């Protein structure tokens, strides 16, 4: 890959700003329900599994496997268009949630479903970093 993937800054809301602040420090947080112990993805201060409003942050292991992926050959998105081909994936975290992300530091042709991966962070320059995954 000659052109690196862009790292757009995410929109920060009262619900997610602690999550993004942690990424800037190289930590991937998960929201978890205090009542039913379910992991919550995407992060929100509400448990969609049981309806509880009591939730807390925990730190994820950063390990997972590829649940599915696609190699994007033609992209309409400025910045990404120039970086094609690139990999968009769902990674199943060791804790359970399947999160949408990119697979990086890998030849797209070598990516496969079930492949073990680990988190890496790409600085957005705006107090946050994107959680991407590379072959473990």
């Amino acid at each position, binding site marked *: 890959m000659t052109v690196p*993937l*862009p*790292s*757009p800054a*995410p*929109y920060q*809301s009262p*619900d*997610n700003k602690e999550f993004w602040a942690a990424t800037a420090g190289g930590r991937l947080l998960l929201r978890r329900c205090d009542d039913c112990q*379910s*992991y*919550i*993805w*995407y*992060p*929100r201060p509400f*448990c*969609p*599994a049981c309806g509880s409003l009591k939730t807390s942050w925990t730190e994820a292991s950063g390990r997972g496997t590829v*649940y*599915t*992926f*696609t*190699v*994007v*050959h*033609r*992209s*309409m*998105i400025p910045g*990404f268009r120039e*970086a094609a081909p*690139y990999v*968009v*994936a*769902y990674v199943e*975290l060791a804790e*359970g*949630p*399947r*999160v*949408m*992300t*990119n697979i990086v530091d890998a030849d797209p042709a070598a990516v496969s*479903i*079930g492949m073990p991966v680990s988190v890496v962070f790409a600085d957005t320059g705006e107090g946050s970093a*994107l959680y991407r995954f590379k072959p473990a």
Partner: protein
Amino acid sequence: MSIRGRAFIAGAYEHPLREIPDLSSSQIQAECAAGALADAGLTFADVDGYFTDSAHGLGGLSMADYLGLRLCHVDSTETGGSSYIVHVGHAAEAIAAGKCSVALVTMAGRPRTTGMRGAQPAEPVPDSVFEGLWGLSGAVTGYAMAAARHMYQYGTTSEQLAEVKVAASLHAQHNPQAFLRKPVTVEEVLASPMVSSPLHRDDCCVVTDGGGAVVIVSPEVAASLHRTCVKVLGQGEAIKHTDSGRVDLTYTGAVVSGPRAFAEAGVTPADIKYASIYDSFTITVVETLEDLGFCEKGQGGKFVAGGALVAPFGRLPFNTDGGGLCNNHPSNRGGMTKIIEAVRQLRGEANEAVQVPNCNLALAHGTGGNIATRMASATLILGQEDA
């Protein structure tokens, strides 16, 4: 309360154009509304219920104003491309409940002319924050991930997916208004450029300007019309989402909407003579056929291979107008055209080469949103007047 037999589709109209630089989307909707009402033998003054998506102003208010409608019932349920199949169900419910007696459903859009971009809201919806960072390029990226997982889990092949496009193209050659009329082969689909693996360009629907409208009426109004009407027998709808990280890309909301629609109609998949199946991408069709019970889960690829979808004599003739893959996908939404072709089949007015013989029972299914994140599935079962 069941809607079975409580409402009839009396009029349907698909805008004949596929690239419309010189009309507004509102005007396209006006032309479609006029076309559907004329088809039914009704006028704008007869309309007392109006159903549309949220793409043009504040719900249905702006278009009701534009069209001069005088309404006692309005519904702007927004479920993306499946909206209009939801609307037919809601219109039938409203008619059965006595809320209105002549319901108009309209839609239009011009993505071919104006591009794919949408406005950025001041406060993004929360899911978009976590999905807008990875370079998803339109809907295809998500559907490609679904296809990849379906292949991994069930052994579905690119050749099997291509059979869906081949069948659609065989139908489109008979439709003078279809955007793509040339029949294609499996080999040609596989040779088309890879957009987002494993989906090629020819696994994707067309991008067209256009629109459509249908008119749903009470049994009393239907009995007063000269036009052959189509009976609404059953409808089901369901939303499926990412389920807090437990997202599963191998099935759709049709697993819920389908059985509900079949139960209300009192029929089974084996009874269906013609099916309009939402075909934003070839994988959409394969997963939907499984979820609606036309074959077992995971067997959709095998089902579509060997011409099962080809009209008039395949096991399950589908999308005889050419579907979204070849004919029309106005406003990036295929639900309206799915209804209209089912109505044509039940009236015996499909293009001659693809008219299904003795077509007395048809299904129209919509998949709105994205199969990889959150979607709304809607299933509509329609029959001939005496069904």
